[in-house]
């Protein structure tokens, strides 16, 4: 099954998703429409604030966010990077964790790696992972978000299996399970979670597939050190991005392999850590590149990340993941300097790009619009320009005091998004309006519909 086909499966009423990059057009065209078509209406997406702002600046605001699903701009000290899709039904659940963003590339263009955990009456022990994921999302939703609590209540109300107060949401560090759900936690880094999952198995070979690396290979050094510096094979797509190959000279027992010939022309975006132990193969997949910010997390100003640990029989994982021929593609000779040069070129070009300006949040509730001021302002805001869903200008509101209030009369055009204009002429990225009045109706289950609203189902 292709990843995007998972969204068309019936039997789910709620979907909670996280992503780093957010492609509004691709998301609304494929996962969103498939979910809605399959009867799943209670949909929430958390996406990295910087990526959302950049995407909206360049490609315009989304058509349905704020009116038919909830989009939350999430922050992390590094970047908000986890890629989780959690589908919740009355008696079943599917938790998909991987490397795929909610973009066209993530959904169909890249080579990605995803892993799933299912809940059903046959696997009740997995309910804890879903409850953990919900608790994790709650950490990244801003305190003043008014719609997420409603989404959460609705999801829990229609999923009795998630309402078990006995579920243990702490990280299981005993290392006794074949599956575990990893994500950044204040009390333990992702790296330490990985080590705990190994359960003292002695790692004989470490195989790492990662599209991005930090310049000093600090993430690699930490990971290897945590496993007593085993023989390590690094798998990269040598046609893209390069690799800080000069830093490898100091690392013994580390080999580099270019697996670009196995990618069928697609960008290799999957991230995998395979620790071949004396007892088992340990496979960690998810959003984590092999970098310091990914493995050490927000406590050390790193990223929000999520992954899944799976344990397999010794010597089986490499073949099962389709990587058995990687050793035929060893990088040698001049290739090292070419990869180093490519890596430096990428680093230089990306450092030059200007981030889009955040415009905060716009909330429309009971016909009254309010503005939540962004955490960082380049200068004093002057006005907020409001637009309808077709991009037509509705009005401009004075925002000099850092707060606006605007009433939308019942027969007036409803604002769909706004742009904050600052005193120095700068403009924010488009800010989609969270239309609570609209969301209250459009996100109801299809069979309940208006009747449920009349019955007081709406919050």
């Amino acid at each position, binding site marked *: 099954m292709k990843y995007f086909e998972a969204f068309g499966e019936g039997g789910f009423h709620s979907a909670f998703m996280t992503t780093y990059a957010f492609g509004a057009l691709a998301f609304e065209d494929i996962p969103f429409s498939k979910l809605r078509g399959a009867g799943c209406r209670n949909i929430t997406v958390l996406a990295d604030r910087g990526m959302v702002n950049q995407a909206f600046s360049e490609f315009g605001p989304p058509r349905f966010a704020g009116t038919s699903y909830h989009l939350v701009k999430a922050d992390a000290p590094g970047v908000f990077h986890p890629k989780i899709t959690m589908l919740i039904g009355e008696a079943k659940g599917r938790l998909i964790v991987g490397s795929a963003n909610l973009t066209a590339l993530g959904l169909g263009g890249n080579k990605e790696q995803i892993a799933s955990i299912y809940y059903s009456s046959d696997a009740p022990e997995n309910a804890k992972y879903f409850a953990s994921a919900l608790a994790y999302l709650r950490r990244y939703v801003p305190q003043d978000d008014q719609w997420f609590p409603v989404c959460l209540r609705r999801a829990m109300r229609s999923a009795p299996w998630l309402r078990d107060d006995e579920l243990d949401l702490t990280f299981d560090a005993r290392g006794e399970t074949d599956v575990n759900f990893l994500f950044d936690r204040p009390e333990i880094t992702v790296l330490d979670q990985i080590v705990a999952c190994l359960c003292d198995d002695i790692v004989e070979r470490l195989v790492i597939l990662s599209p991005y690396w930090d310049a000093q290979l600090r993430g690699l050094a930490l990971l290897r050190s945590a496993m007593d510096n085993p023989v390590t094979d690094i798998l990269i797509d040598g046609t893209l991005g390069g690799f800080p190959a000069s830093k490898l000279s100091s690392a013994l027992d580390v080999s580099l392999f270019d697996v670009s010939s196995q990618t069928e022309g697609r960008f290799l975006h999957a991230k995998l850590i395979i620790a071949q132990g004396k007892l088992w193969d340990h496979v960690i997949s998810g959003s984590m590149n092999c970098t310091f910010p990914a493995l050490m997390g927000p406590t050390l100003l790193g990223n929000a990340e999520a992954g899944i640990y799976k344990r397999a029989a010794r010597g089986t994982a490499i073949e099962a993941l389709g990587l058995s021929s990687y050793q035929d593609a060893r990088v040698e000779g001049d290739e090292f300097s070419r990869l180093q040069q*490519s890596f430096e070129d990428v680093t230089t070009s990306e450092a030059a790009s200007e981030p889009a300006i955040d415009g905060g949040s716009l909330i429309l509730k009971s016909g009254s619009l309010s503005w939540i001021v962004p955490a960082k302002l380049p200068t004093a805001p002057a006005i907020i320009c409001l637009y309808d869903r077709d991009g037509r200008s509705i009005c401009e509101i004075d925002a000099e005091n850092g707060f606006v209030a605007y009433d939308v009369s019942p027969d007036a055009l409803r604002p769909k998004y706004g742009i904050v204009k600052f005193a120095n002429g700068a403009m924010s990225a488009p800010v989609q309006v969270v239309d609570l009045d609209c969301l209250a109706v459009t996100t109801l289950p299809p069979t309940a519909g208006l009747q449920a609203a009349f019955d007081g189902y709406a919050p």
Partner: protein
Amino acid sequence: MAVIDFSVSSDPDAAEEQRYLRNKGGAFGAIYATQMAEMGLLHLPGAGDPNPNPVCSDIALKLADALSNELGAAESEFFKAVETGKVSFTTLKSLGAMKPNHLKFGSDEHKLLTEILLGKLNTSGEADLRRRSTLRMLLEVVATSAKIPPVEQIKWRWFEKLPEPQRESTSIVPRLWFLYQACDLMRLAYEAILVAALTMLERKPQRRLSLEGLTNELVSYVSVADDQTWEELSLDIADGAVTAREHAQAMLEAIDLSETAQQVHLAVSLIAALFVRALDMTDLVEETMSGSDYFQSLRTEVQFLNQARSAPARHVIADMFRERVIKRHLWVAARKFRNQNAYTFHMEPDEGQLRYRSHFSVSPSSPRLTEAIRFLCDIGLIDDGGITQFGLAELAAT
């Protein structure tokens, strides 16, 4: 005796890898039936029609009878081969009489086929008369060339030598062929810009660049003064000595030679020339291309440029590159991904950047003029030496 056995390959129930055609029903319904219906040879079933198959019209049955008379014994040989799924080389050679270029001049089949193709029957409708106009235009071109010119040359001639619209006797067909070429040129220019964008992305580190960065680099290839409006730029280009044909040919050559900067510059020159030319033909463009703005066409693009005619040319060009070319590609690819599960992105938004994925080739479209020329050859109106006496007589007839 050598025999070709095609019984399995033409059996619709054979395994797909053994069949000539993947579609069990063959290509008739999808490719030929609609065109034959337009010529009055077939009646296509309507919605709710109990017979889902196309049926022959009276004129088609007459044509079939005429063909049958001409074929003689070859007809039964043909049907026998069809039924058995086998044919000997000797029989196959004798069936050569069925080829269209073996049409016997002066025969009933020849006369009837000529009348049908040229829309000369009493039952001829508007589509037949338009086909007749096109075929007569082809005859005129061949008559002045003393040979059959290449199709590209014919399209350019029809674009450049448009009859005055006020002449009452002038058919609309020449103007439609002008529009066809203008639309095709606009598409070629946009595709040239998209290909240039892909080339630039492919050369970048990690094969990616922001949309704004890509747009700015593309615009840097266009020579335009800071204070020049789009109207001023386009009039300068249109009034210059270089024709649209020269702009287009140079642009295609630049694509072949991978001269990206020149390719972008020439694409904008071509668009400017088309813009001015199309503005002079606004009534025709609006009248014949009044479809939904959902589809990009010469009309929508000229409207877009005309609305911005007083704006600085550099801004207009940047908007055109970003909104009308790059984002349009992403939008269309997203629709295909959603509706057909087909991943056709040539570049893809990726973590705040656009990432290169694949190239495509840019080439002028083929409006089936090659086939029309072949038909005129088959019925003897033209040959390798140009127009025939029979063709001249047809041209002289009203």
